């Protein structure tokens, strides 16, 4: 399997891998280890923007790279009820084979599961632990 430079870069660094805890953290996950793809996002919201973002991903290099990129891009922006780019655009950006589109949909589901409750968040009303 060949990967483009962006996929290799984010797969190899995976700089934002991890979890967040505390006030203003919203967590969403989708997929299943047993099915080969599982993704989780943690978003920390402060003053209406994403102050920090982390991800965990069990999956192929494309899955890890796209999740890492989304977490990277999210910081500083307002939580939106969509991905920063469409699944199709992500597929092209990371040269994801069409057969792997389902894995991008898992990422989208995890992202939406994290971000949707965060959109109307007001400080002090939501805490994630553990």
């Amino acid at each position, binding site marked *: *399997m060949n990967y483009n430079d962006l996929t290799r870069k984010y797969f190899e660094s995976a700089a934002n891998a991890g979890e967040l805890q505390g006030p203003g953290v919203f967590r969403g996950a989708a997929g299943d280890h047993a099915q*080969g793809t599982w993704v989780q996002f943690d978003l920390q919201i402060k003053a209406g923007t994403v102050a920090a973002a982390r991800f*965990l*991903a069990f999956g*192929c290099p494309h899955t890890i790279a796209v999740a890492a990129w989304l977490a990277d891009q999210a910081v500083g922006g307002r939580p939106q009820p969509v991905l920063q780019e469409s699944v199709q655009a992500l597929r092209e950006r990371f040269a994801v084979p*069409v057969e792997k589109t389902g894995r991008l949909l898992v990422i989208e589901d995890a992202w939406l599961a994290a971000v949707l409750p965060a959109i109307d968040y007001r400080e002090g009303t939501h805490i994630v632990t553990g």
Partner: protein
Amino acid sequence: MPVYLDHAATTPVEPRVAARMAEVLSSETEFGNPASSSHGYGDVAAALVETARAQVAAAVGAAVHEIVWTSGATEANNLAIFGVAQYYRERGRHIVTARTEHKAVLDPCRELERRGWQISYLVPDREGLLDPSQVAAALRPDTVLVSLMHVNNEIGVVQDIAAIGAICARHGGAWLHVDAAQSVGKCPLHFASLGADLMSLSSHKVYGPKGVGALVISQRADLGGRGRVQLSAQQFGGGQERALRAGTLPTHQVIGMGLAFELASKISSVETARVAHLRQRLWHGLAALGGVLRNGSATRSVPHILNVSFEGVEGESLIAAIRPYLAVSTGSACTSAAAEPSYVLRALGRGERLSESSLRFGLGRTTTEEDIDAAVATVSQALNRLRQVAGTTPVA
């Protein structure tokens, strides 16, 4: 270049073999067609071919005239399976093989199935071993062939071919074909003692050139009064190789295989013990990483192959992470974007995820302790990182 631990896939050509092949290729007297009996050039080439035939025969305990050259083990398997099936088609159309065979056996069997033959696929135990009684139970009056490998190419386990050969001989109608591509130079192999009727050999697994192999065809006539195994040719055109495999023989390839087999037969017990020690070092290093499962029997296997599955990581990511540093085979067949888990490991009862996250380490003559330690370090680093990214171990 990454550390090469994929000797079960192929081996580098032994320098003495390469040198001899180059001599033949550039010679002004050894380039003749071995089938040209009308002049001395042909005689010289034919003599080289026959010397190589004797070298291969001696290395595997066969008679010289039992060796038929092919382009490799895949062609030898095809010739054995289709050749027997076609020749004995009026006597029976049932074949016994195993789910863990190489594709070069399974695909011909599936093609025969498509043409109306019936195939019984034996399932090994969780260690990858067949009980010879499974073969006995699968034999039917219309069984014409049993095709089983000696050493499994993915997990390295060694089947009890001699016991299976005895069962086939008692049956009287089932010929035994053995794919021994992984055996030569790695474990004792003596065709005459094996009880097999047909045996496939490969050159490039034994530090010889790619593109040449052989099918050993038993010429023993005293096998329970059933005579000698007969084959229908699958290739026509010049009557070479006793009309079983037509085509001009590639002299340089053949002499390369001959010398490679001669050298392999001289591998000392010291070298075998050295490789076995390296495999133990590798296994202990990997096992210490935690969540590492060994695939296949540890006791009934060649010392050159170690197959392990890793918990908590996805297979494609594992191979992508180690690929720059380590050349090994993965448990997935990445022939498409979506990898398929190893059917061999699945047959052993491994789940889909663990089958995908498996690696086959193939050790060889040039493998050193430093290579093994580097491999363990590479896998350790990849495993730790991917498990952290997957959340299957705490993030530091």
